[in-house]
Structure formats: structure tokens, C-alpha cells
């Protein structure tokens, strides 16, 4: 089915073919409908937009920028976490800076090197850990912490339908169904939701040895101070809610939109991705999609029907805070502190053996 007399550029999973103009309208409407349907953005927001410089985050920022221009009470700031992955992050960083400068969007950049004392590349030299594991842990830690310091009401991420379908299936295959309760178009605990807070050491804002060397900023100050810890026992505002406005858009749709709006930069791929489990699940889903169009939509739509029950079944009665750094955590010590301690030990061991490889 053709949409008009103009050249078609994409065929949707349901079979409809759209030209450039109608596809752009379709895509933008889909994003706005997703925002409305899942109540992702309120009338007034101080939104952080997590940017990597890749097509998803630039597409997201491009569309949210349009929204913000129509609704000045929705303020946007880009936030970029530079993990320090050579020949990958350094390239996308330039794309992010250029876009934000051109579109008058403020961009805050935080690096692993600055915040933890070493880049991801160097962390992987001393720790025997899956790259995506440690990258994700530290990136999410920084994203949440800095978003809170910047007083963002929410963080928007460029996660798309493909990402979600992959996460859903990965959790199924690994018998981690409880993790799927944390998926969906909006994640994190609303500040409106009451929850009892188990907070063990609000008095002690200093960090223990395992963290001090790595979770300090360059000026050697403790990064957690009493000023940025929220004492409100009725909310968990230490965790900034995350929204996914591209939630129902396929990767192909996002790329097509990025192409027609000149948001595409040179393709770069994280060198750690090719080894990942996610990449294998991604390839599996794409092979299925090629034979059975609409597979990924079906996975996500059926998951959305189950999500309320999953959230109910796996809801956290209490919100914990890490005893070391006071960030939200599911246990007494958050994963960031756990790995920071391992890094400290690994670095100490390297110094003793005279094999320190960084600095």
C-alpha cells in the first residue's frame, strides 16, 4: 500500500509504505503518542537527556527539542557519560558536542577518568569482568548521581523497541524475570510513591577506603556530601526516574528518521559489544524479524500487558541505600562501590608488583 505519489523510503512491519514526509510525521507522532500514553513528560520538567552522540540519542534530543520549543516549561539539558573507550566514545563525543552547540542545548559531560580515576579501558586491564557489566554499573551510577545534582526531574534515554525486546528476551533466557519488572517505558520509583526507606548511615558521609580512591572527584573531595542526600523518608528522590520516549520505535525507524534529518554520523561500534550476549540475542531477533515481520513489536506489546503483574510481584517494599556512598541500592553495598573496591585492590596489587599500568 503506497501512501502518496512520492518515493517510499520505508515499509512498516504492518506493510504500509511511507514517503519521507509521511514517515517523518508518522515517527514524530508515534513518539509524542508514546509520551502521552505512558505519561512520560509532565507540563513542567527539567529534563536530562542522556546522550551518547549516536543516532538514538540524537534523534531523541532532536524530537524533544521540538517539544521544548513548543512548551518552554520543559527544559532540556544533555548529559553525556564518557567511559573512556578509545576509538568509540571519543568519536561520538564530538558528534554530541556539535549537535548540542548547533541546537543551543547545554551539554554536561562527565568522565570515568575524572570521577573514578580511570577509564573503562584501563579498568578492564585490571579487572576480570565482562565489559558491559562494569560499564553499565558505573555509567548508571554516574548518570543518576549527576542527574540528581543537576536537579533533573527525569532522565530521558534513547532506548528503542529493539533494545527493550532484547532485554526482555535476555531476562527470559537467563531466568532473570525479576529484572524485567524494572523494564518498561518509565523506570524508577516516582517521587510521589510512598515507600519506607531503610537508610543505615546518613550520619556518616565519608567513604571507606574501598571507594575513597576511586569515587572522589579531581579535587579530592568526597563526592557525597550531606547537601545532596535527601532525607525525605516518604520518597526516593535519590533515584531520578528514567523515561524512554522512543520505546515503541524500531531501530530501523530511528535510523531512517536520523538519516532524513541529517542526524547520522559515521558508524562506530563499541569494541566490547561484539563479545556480548546482547549482540547474540539481537542477531537472533533480527533473523526472526526478517522472516516474521512484527516479531519485536509482539514481544514488547505482550510484555507490556504482563508488566503490571511483574511490578506487583517483584515490587520492592523497602528502598535501600548503599552504606558506602548512600546511592540507591538493592543491597547494603551498591554495585558501583563493590567494583570500586575491587579496582582499589587490583590497583594496589599492581603497584606492589610494580606493574601499575595507568598514571
Amino acid at each position: 500500500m503506497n501512501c502518496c505519489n512520492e518515493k517510499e523510503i520505508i515499509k512498516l512491519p504492518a506493510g504500509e509504505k511511507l514517503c519521507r514526509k509521511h514517515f517523518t510525521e508518522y515517527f514524530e507522532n508515534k513518539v509524542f503518542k508514546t509520551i502521552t500514553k505512558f505519561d512520560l513528560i509532565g507540563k513542567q520538567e527539567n529534563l536530562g537527556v542522556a546522550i551518547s552522540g549516536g543516532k538514538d540519542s540524537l534523534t531523541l534530543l532532536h524530537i524533544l527539542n521540538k517539544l521544548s520549543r513548543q512548551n518552554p516549561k520543559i527544559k532540556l539539558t544533555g548529559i553525556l557519560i564518557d567511559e573512556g573507550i578509545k576509538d568509540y566514545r571519543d568519536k561520538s563525543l564530538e558528534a554530541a558536542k556539535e549537535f548540542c552547540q548547533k541546537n543551543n542545548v547545554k551539554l554536561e559531560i562527565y568522565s570515568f577518568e575524572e570521577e573514578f580515576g580511570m577509564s573503562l579501558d584501563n579498568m578492564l586491564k585490571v579487572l576480570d569482568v565482562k565489559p558491559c557489566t562494569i560499564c553499565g554499573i558505573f555509567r548508571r551510577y554516574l548518570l543518576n548521581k549527576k542527574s540528581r545534582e543537576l536537579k533533573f526531574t527525569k532522565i530521558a534515554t534513547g532506548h528503542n523497541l529493539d533494545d527493550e525486546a532484547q532485554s526482555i528476551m535476555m531476562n527470559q533466557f537467563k531466568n532473570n524475570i525479576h529484572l524485567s519488572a524494572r523494564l518498561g517505558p518509565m523506570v524508577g520509583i516516582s517521587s510521589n510513591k510512598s515507600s519506607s526507606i531503610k537508610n543505615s548511615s546518613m550520619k556518616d558521609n565519608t567513604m571507606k577506603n574501598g571507594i575513597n580512591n576511586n569515587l572522589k572527584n579531581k579535587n579530592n573531595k568526597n563526592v557525597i556530601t550531606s547537601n545532596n542526600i535527601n532525607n525525605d523518608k516518604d520518597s526516593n528522590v535519590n533515584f531520578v526516574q528514567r523515561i524512554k520516549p522512543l520505546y515503541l520505535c524500531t531501530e530501523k525507524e530511528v535510523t531512517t528518521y536520523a538519516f532524513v534529518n541529517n542526524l547520522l554520523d559515521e558508524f562506530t561500534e563499541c569494541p566490547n559489544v561484539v563479545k556480548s550476549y546482547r549482540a547474540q540475542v539481537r542477531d537472533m531477533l533480527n533473523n526472526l524479524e526478517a522472516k516474521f515481520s512484527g516479531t519485536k513489536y509482539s514481544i514488547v506489546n505482550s510484555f507490556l500487558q504482563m508488566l503490571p503483574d511483574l511490578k506487583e510481584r517483584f515490587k520492592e517494599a523497602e528502598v535501600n541505600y548503599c552504606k558506602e556512598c548512600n546511592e540507591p541500592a538493592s543491597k547494603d553495598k551498591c554495585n558501583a562501590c563493590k567494583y570500586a573496591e575491587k579496582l582499589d585492590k587490583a590497583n594496589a596489587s599492581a603497584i606492589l608488583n610494580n606493574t601499575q599500568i595507568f598514571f
Partner: protein
Amino acid sequence: MQINVFFDREKKEKTIEVGENSLIRDLLAKMGINPVTVIVSRNDTIIMEDDEINDKDKIKLISVISGG
């Protein structure tokens, strides 16, 4: 027909031999590329899988997968 194809994921250009009246879908199949994973452009315009290929065409394959 000889077709020049640049695939951004491989960062290189190849010359692919395809038969007369071939479609983009045939080209992708010959290269072992899943059409779900790329968008195809010719002269900076997106073309679709059932578009015909012309002799001496310069085709660019743009990977849709996220880099990270």
C-alpha cells in the same frame, strides 16, 4: 552488473556482481546481510528492498544497529 557497495559497518567499499534486473533484496542476499539490519541509500536517497538496481550503481548500506 557490477555494483559498488559501501557498508558503513565494515568501513569499506566492495564491488558486487549481480544479475540483470536484480533488486536490492537480491544484492543483500548475495552479501549475506539481513535487510532488517540496514537501510540502503543511492545518491543520498533511501531506496527499498524491492527497488531495481542499475548497472554501475553506487550503493551505501547504513547499519541500523546501535553501536553500544
